[in-house]
C-alpha cells in the first residue's frame, strides 16, 4: 500500500516537476511569475488529442499507432514552444522595463485568453483521450505499476537530466546562467539577452507540453480548466524548491507529488488538492526562499 502510493505520488510529482521547471527558469531570468505557464500544459493536452484525431482521419493511427503518437507529441511540443515564444514577445517583452506588477497582470490576461479560447473552440465539456495505451502492468514487490506510469517517470527523469546537462555543460546553458545573474553584464560579454530569454520560454513551454500530453494519456479526461490547478501546483512546487533554482523545481515537484499521493491515501483523497496549498502556506511562513533558493539581496 505504502509503496503503491509512493509510485503514484512519484508519477504525479514528476509531472509537477517538469511544469515547475518552466516557472523557475523564467523566474530565474526575468524575475517574473509566468502565470500563463499552466495554460501551456493544458494546450499541450488538447493539441495531442487534436493531432491524434488528424492522424486518425488520415488513417495513420490504425496503420502505425506508435508513429502517429510520436508525431503528435513532436507537433504538440513544437506548437507549444512556438506559443510560449510568441507570448513572451507579445505580452512580456514590451513590458520589460515596466513596474513589476505589469507583466504579472499581462500574464494573467494571457492565461484567461487561452482558457477561453480553448473553451470556445473545443467546448466546455470534458474531452476524453481517444486511445488507451501502456495499460500493461509491471508487478514489483507487490507494487502494481502500469507501463504508462513507468513511461511518465522515465520520460520526466530523462528530460530533467537532459536539462541539467544542457544548463551546466553547454555554452547556451552558461549564457542562461550568466543572464539570470546579471543581464547587463551578460550583454557586455556579448550574450544576446533577448535570444536567451526566448530560448528559456521555448524550453519551458516544450516541457509543459510534454507534461500535458502525459497527463492527458494518464487521466484520460481533460477540460479547458486543468491548466489552472496544475499551474498553481507546479508553482507551489517551484516555491517549495526555491524559485529560480532548477534543482529546487525538480525536488519540489517530486515532494509535492509524494505528499499528495500519500495524503490522499492516508488522510483523505478529498483533500488531495488542499495539500498543495497547505504546503505553499507553510513554506511561505517558515522558509520563503524554499529548499534551494538564494536569499534575495536587497538591491541598492
Amino acid at each position, binding site marked *: 500500500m505504502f509503496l503503491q502510493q509512493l509510485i503514484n505520488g512519484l508519477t504525479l510529482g514528476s509531472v509537477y516537476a517538469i511544469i515547475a521547471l518552466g516557472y523557475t527558469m523564467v523566474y530565474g531570468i526575468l524575475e517574473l511569475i509566468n502565470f500563463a505557464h499552466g495554460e501551456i500544459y493544458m494546450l499541450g493536452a488538447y493539441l495531442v488529442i487534436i493531432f491524434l484525431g488528424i492522424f486518425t482521419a488520415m488513417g495513420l493511427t490504425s496503420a502505425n499507432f506508435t508513429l502517429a503518437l510520436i508525431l503528435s507529441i513532436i507537433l504538440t511540443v513544437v506548437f507549444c514552444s512556438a506559443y510560449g515564444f510568441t507570448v513572451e514577445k507579445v505580452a512580456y517583452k514590451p513590458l520589460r522595463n515596466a513596474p513589476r506588477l505589469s507583466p504579472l497582470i499581462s500574464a494573467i490576461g494571457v492565461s484567461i485568453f487561452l482558457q477561453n479560447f480553448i473553451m470556445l473552440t473545443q467546448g466546455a465539456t470534458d474531452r476524453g483521450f481517444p486511445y488507451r495505451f501502456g495499460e500493461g502492468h509491471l508487478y514489483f514487490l507487490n507494487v502494481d505499476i502500469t507501463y504508462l506510469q513507468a513511461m511518465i517517470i522515465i520520460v520526466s527523469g530523462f528530460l530533467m537530466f537532459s536539462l541539467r546537462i544542457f544548463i551546466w555543460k553547454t555554452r547556451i546553458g552558461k*549564457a542562461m*546562467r*550568466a543572464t539570470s545573474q*546579471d543581464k*547587463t*553584464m551578460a*550583454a*557586455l*560579454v556579448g*550574450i544576446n539577452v533577448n535570444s536567451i530569454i526566448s530560448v528559456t520560454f521555448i524550453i519551458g513551454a516544450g516541457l509543459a507540453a510534454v507534461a500535458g500530453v502525459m497527463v492527458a494519456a494518464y487521466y484520460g479526461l481533460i477540460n479547458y480548466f486543468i491548466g489552472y490547478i496544475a499551474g498553481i501546483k507546479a508553482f507551489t512546487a517551484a516555491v517549495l524548491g526555491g524559485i529560480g533554482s532548477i534543482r529546487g523545481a525538480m525536488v519540489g515537484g517530486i515532494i509535492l507529488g509524494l505528499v499528495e499521493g500519500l495524503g490522499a491515501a492516508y488522510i483523505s483523497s478529498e483533500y488531495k488538492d488542499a495539500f498543495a496549498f497547505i504546503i505553499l502556506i507553510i513554506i511561505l511562513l517558515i522558509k520563503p526562499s524554499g529548499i534551494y533558493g538564494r536569499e534575495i539581496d536587497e538591491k541598492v
Partner: protein
Amino acid sequence: MFVLETNRLTRHFGGIKAIEDVSFKAKDRSIVSIIGPNGAGKTTLFNCFTGITKPTKGSIRFMNKEISGLQPHEIANLGISRTFQNIRLFSEMSVIENVMVGQHTKRKYNLFSAIFHNNNFLIQEQNILQNAFEYLEFIGLQNFADMRADNLPYGSQRRLEIARALATEPDIILLDEPTAGMNPAETEEVMSLIKNIQELGKTIILIEHDMHLVMGISDWIIVLDHGVKIAEGKPEQVRNDPLVIEAYLGKETIN
C-alpha cells in the same frame, strides 16, 4: 590610427548634463586615462561606449564604424569590453566559467551540434576551455579555476573581471577604476597587468583616481569636469594645466 573617436558626444539625464560636447580620439594600442572629480561624467562616458546608455547627441566611432545606436551585446561582439567600478562577476559560477562565458560568442555555434555533441562541437568546447585557462594563467589565477567566483579575495576578483573582459577578445578594453579599494602592492600588480594587456595589442581606456598610476602608465590623458572636457594631453602637459589643478583643488582665492 585611431580605434575610438567621439565627436561632440552629449548625454543629458533630464536637466542634468552628464556629458556635454565631448570629443576625443584614442590611438590604437595606447593607454588612455580619463580623470576628473566625482560626478564628472566618466562612467557615463563608458556607458555610452558600451551601449548601456544611448547618447543624446553626437557620435561614437569604433574602427570608423558608428556604434552609438547599437545594443550592448553587438558592441561587445564588435570588440569593446569593460569592467565595472563595483565588481560584477557572475558570482554563482566558478572562476573558469566566468572566463568561458566571455568566450561565449567567439566561436561558431549552432544548436544542432550542441544537442548531438558532434565532433566539431566537442573540439570547440575543448578550445574554449583551453583558452579560458590561458586567460587565467595570464592573470595568475589558474590554481583557482574551480572555485566559486565570489570566494576569491577582493583583488583577485578584480583581476578575474579583467580576464573575463579579455576573453571576449576585444580591441578596446575599458577599465573603470581597476584599483579601487586596493592596497599599494595590489595596485602595482594591476599596473603591470595593464602594461601586459597593452603588449597583447589592445587599446586600454582607463578611469582612475590613483594619480601615481595614471601618470605612470598613460600615453594620453583626458580630463573631464562637470561633463565637459577641460584638458587633454600627455601626462606632463596635463599635470601642469591650471584648469586641471583648479578642477581638483578649487580656485585660488588668495591674491
